[in-house]
């Protein structure tokens, strides 16, 4: 078991290195200079030369690559051409917002995904099943950016129930920073007003992100439950007198929860990817928004930085869920 963990942990830096390499070559294939595009066509050669030298964009590709790797290892993700601040610093600033959004959505997905999956399986082929699967499938097909905008239109503009974006009303100051997650921090410091306000801002973006990513979890839980319900041991539990409720929602559920864990890692990946769109729509100051605006300014370093960061988070989450899965299922012992 320990060996498995060590092997997986060691694999992460290697994967990250490969990912970084991939990113590097993807972004440096295009001969157009980022600087030239930023500064526009009417810049002097001197200006271009100066910025080029400053960012090392004139050296041969391989040299740039080694320098790049070296920098990454030191934690230097380069500087954003637009903001002129180190990318890493920006990432750290924006990270908590994305984590808060992702965690919130993940919780919603876990709760509702499992609920829908179980209901769909237990009432197989009934209208309830179709309804549950409909929500899941419908959720996936909805374009996240569009859904977010529709929600804003309906709930913020027309109904006025929710704010139109951002993490907090402009009139309030963020809570004392412990974790960077407004909801958590305000809870910990007893700042109830901010707590309510932060939740209000978090709700619609969270629901948008969650709704569009429900289907993986629901499908997995449903198929796992169906398999479990068809097993002999389920029949046996009924044969001894356990009620249907007990069998479905207590015994069979545990079997399915274990499979549900395996999709959490995958779902998190989708959430992180989808965060880019949702953050853009809701002006949510997270890594996603940072990446999107950087793209518009043809500012590559932040984009790569965000991608690598997300890769790290993704890898860690996958490792944790795999371990969790092995821990929960008594049949697996490495």
């Amino acid at each position, binding site marked *: 078991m320990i060996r498995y963990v060590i092997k997986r942990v060691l694999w992460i830096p290697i*994967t*990250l290195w*490969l*990912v970084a390499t*991939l*990113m590097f070559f*993807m*972004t*440096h*294939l*295009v001969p*157009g200079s980022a600087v030239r595009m930023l500064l526009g066509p009417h810049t002097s050669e001197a200006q271009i030369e100066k910025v080029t030298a400053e960012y090392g964009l004139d050296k041969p590709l391989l040299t740039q690559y080694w320098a790049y790797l070296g920098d990454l290892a030191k934690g230097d993700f380069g500087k954003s051409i637009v903001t002129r601040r180190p990318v890493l610093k920006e990432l750290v600033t924006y990270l908590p917002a994305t984590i808060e959004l992702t965690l919130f959505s993940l919780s919603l997905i876990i709760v509702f995904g499992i609920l829908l999956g179980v209901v769909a399986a237990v009432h197989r082929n009934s209208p309830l099943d*179709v309804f549950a699967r409909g929500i899941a*499938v*419908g959720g*996936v*097909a*909805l*374009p*996240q*950016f*569009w*859904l977010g*905008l*529709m929600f*804003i*239109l309906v709930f913020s*503009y*027309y109904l006025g129930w929710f704010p139109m974006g951002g993490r907090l009303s402009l009139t309030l100051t963020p809570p004392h920073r412990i974790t960077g997650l407004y909801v958590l921090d305000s809870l910990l410091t007893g700042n109830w007003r901010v707590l309510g306000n932060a939740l209000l801002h978090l709700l619609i973006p969270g629901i948008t992100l969650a709704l569009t990513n429900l289907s993986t979890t629901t499908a997995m839980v449903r198929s796992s439950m169906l398999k479990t319900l068809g097993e002999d041991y389920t029949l046996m539990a009924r044969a001894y007198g356990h009620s249907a409720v007990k069998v479905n929602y207590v015994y069979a559920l545990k079997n399915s929860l274990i499979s549900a864990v395996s999709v959490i890692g995958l779902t998190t*990946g*989708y959430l*992180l*990817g*989808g965060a*880019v*769109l949702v953050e*853009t*729509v809701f002006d949510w100051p997270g890594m996603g928004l940072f*990446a*999107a605006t950087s*793209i*518009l300014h*043809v500012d*590559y370093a932040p*984009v*790569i930085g*965000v*991608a690598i960061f*997300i*890769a790290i988070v*993704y*890898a860690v989450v996958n490792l944790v869920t795999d371990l969790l899965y092995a821990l929960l299922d008594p049949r697996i012992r490495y």
Partner: protein
Amino acid sequence: MRRTAYIVRRSPLAVIGILLILLVVVLAIFAPVIAPYNPQKINFAQSFQSPSADHLFGTDDLGRDIFSRVVYGSRVSLKIAFVVVSISATLGTLLGLISGYFGGFVDMVIMRLVDVFLSVPTFVLAMVGAAALGPSVTNVMLAMSIVWWTWHARIVRGETLKLKNTDYMLALRSMGARTPRILFRHLLPNCVGPIAVQTTLQLGLAVLTSSGLSFLGLGAQPPTPSWGLMVSIGRQYLPADWWMITFPGVMIFLLVAGFILLGDTIRDVVSRDIQ
């Protein structure tokens, strides 16, 4: 095959899915006939009109008829989806077959490559790719193909591994069947099921991802009538001119839902066969 058709026909969801897809295909093929206006025709006098008899879906900021743009937009979405999935399915299947059949070093290299591509969430990777290559429809297609072949490769490799050591394969080899023949005439047909599922679902995801990338400004550029781009432009004019984002978005939803409904049903068929 006939059994598949039978089951598909009996599942109302699949039928709905097929109808949705067909709807969009019809729109795409007969766009010039269906669209009442030239999608690129600018007419400032008519800009920001809400939906009416004249303009079913209203007009946009440049006075272009949104209904016509939505109709022509179907061409963009379908083109992207089919090109991307064709490339990634072909590439992925080929690599998957090779990887699974030959094993060893080749397998390891290909699988490591797959792992790397899969270690970053696909949208993010496509985003980086499209950003790096420059915003255009072609580059979006390229970026997505580069990322998505991995899914096919994994699945096909899995199926190949399952079949590789069966007596069936052994018999073929002992009869002198040569490798390419084995790969294509014998292994490949067995993978058709899972490939079909993956392909259909991926078509839906392609539409979703490409419209997301267009929304961010990475895909189709103005004045192309791409649905995602239309939503992005329309966003500036909320809430007053709600029709500019509503209709393109609904179309994306319908097309994607169609593919997913169909794909899910095919998946049910395939897994039932396996049982």
